[in-house]
């Protein structure tokens, strides 16, 4: 009995400071109070600790010097203002009425032109009729214009996530096209891409009994572009990166589909190529974002 009481007292002693700091769970608090009502030595211990806790009240509190408080606040506010002024051109774009539509159409046209500039070397004009090209690049223009319209529409409302999706999708689509362009233009990159595609095709042939270097090249291409994009989004500060991931992959695939179809149809792989590229985009997005989020989580407390 005596032993049991001593054990209980030891346990209670370990909770007394928590009791004074008001950090006990309700059931722990009840147990401590019940014990203190019965045990005079623990009650005395609790009183002496509470007196020490109370002693802190007497310590003088030094107020922050007003000039230090103001100076630090002003320095950060100035910095915030400077950051905002980095993109004054974007703030000046009117986002109301017909302006929004006009700016979106113009921006969509410019982006489609850049895209065409990046991809035109890959398109064989002897294979495709001009009306097909016009139709496909018009579709591209409409999709880009829609993306810009969403960005402008939600310029002042941070809660709307579609603007982030469209902004990222346009960036990733352009990034993917840039990778195409560089891969086509630079000898070393072309060799690297063809070799990697060849190896994947060989493995695919061994495992699934089918494989194609051309399709594998597109798979790598979309996977890489989506990986880079998703990795950046995973690290970025905005909310909802994970929720946006699959929508973005989907939008990117739609944006790139005309180019993929053009390339695929030259080799009789038309829509099959789009399906493989979409798969590559999803895999790249998933791995890239996962990695980005893990690194960000680690950095978050380390930065602190």
């Amino acid at each position, binding site marked *: 009995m005596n032993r049991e009481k001593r054990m209980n007292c030891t346990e209670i002693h*370990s909770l007394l*400071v*928590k009791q004074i*700091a008001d*950090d006990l769970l309700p059931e722990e608090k009840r147990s401590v109070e019940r014990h203190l009502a019965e045990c005079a030595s623990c009650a005395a211990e609790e009183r*002496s*600790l509470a*007196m*020490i*806790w109370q*002693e*802190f009240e*007497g*310590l*003088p*509190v*030094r*107020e*922050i*010097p007003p000039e*230090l*408080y103001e*100076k*630090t*606040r002003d*320095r*950060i*506010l100035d*910095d*915030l*203002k400077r*950051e*905002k002024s980095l993109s004054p051109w974007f*703030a*000046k774009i*009117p*986002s*109301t009425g017909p302006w929004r539509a006009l700016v979106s159409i113009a921006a969509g046209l410019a982006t489609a032109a850049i895209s065409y500039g990046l991809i035109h070397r890959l398109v064989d004009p002897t294979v495709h009729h001009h009306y097909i090209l016009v139709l496909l690049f018009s579709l591209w223009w409409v999709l880009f214009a829609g993306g810009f319209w969403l960005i402008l529409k939600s*310029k*002042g*409302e*941070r809660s709307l996530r579609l603007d982030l999706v469209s902004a990222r999708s346009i960036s990733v689509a352009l990034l993917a096209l840039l990778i195409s362009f560089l891969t086509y233009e630079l000898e070393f990159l072309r060799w690297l891409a063809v070799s990697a595609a060849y190896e994947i095709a060989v493995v695919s042939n061994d495992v699934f009994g089918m494989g194609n270097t051309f399709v594998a090249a597109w798979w790598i291409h979309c996977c890489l572009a989506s990986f880079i994009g998703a990795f950046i989004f995973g690290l*970025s*500060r*905005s*909310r909802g990166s994970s929720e946006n991931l699959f929508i973005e992959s989907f939008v990117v695939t739609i944006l790139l589909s005309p180019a993929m179809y053009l390339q695929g149809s030259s080799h009789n792989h038309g829509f099959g190529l789009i399906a493989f590229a979409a798969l590559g985009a999803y895999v790249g997005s998933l791995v890239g974002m996962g990695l980005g989020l893990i690194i*960000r*989580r680690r*950095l*978050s*407390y380390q*930065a*602190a």
Partner: protein
Amino acid sequence: MATLKKTLARSFLSAVSYYETEASCSSFSDEELMIRYQAGEEAAFEELYARYGKKIYGFLMRRLTNPETSADLFQETFLRFHRGRALYRPELPFKTWLYAIANNLVRDSLRAKVRSKLAGAAEANENSVETAIPDGSYKLQSFKEAFAGLTDDQKEALVLSRFEGMKYDEIGRVMGRSTEAVNQLVQRAMRHLRECADES
């Protein structure tokens, strides 16, 4: 003309919603404000600063006692907070994140002093700054001396618990320790203070 310009600017920048959110910033949680601050909203920063500026300075003063060092670290804390805001994730409790920044700076500062050859003299000088405050109470003076005799970890845990009103799990996050480790630190610190009080 000026009014027209103002109205146009507001409509172009969707500033109406901005002013609305500025007025009601005080109703947001710390985490919500932090998200707005990440998006560049100045009013959100001002609200967070108003909530925590004085508290952080108090925390630094209690840990370091030297006003000059505290002032330097106060500025450094908020500059790091500002520069590192992109790395904050809303699922982290804001308060512990901010205190972790301040606490890590205190630790670095104390470590640097220990490494310095003049560490002993500087520390003695710092303590004398605080203990020299004329409060007319011998008991309080000896209490301060007893407090100065605690280890850095014990001081850290005790200050966060007693003055910043943090729960042990929050302190654990700030210090990078388990809740039980924090419990042990606070207990040992309290018993040390009581022993000193008994002796005096």
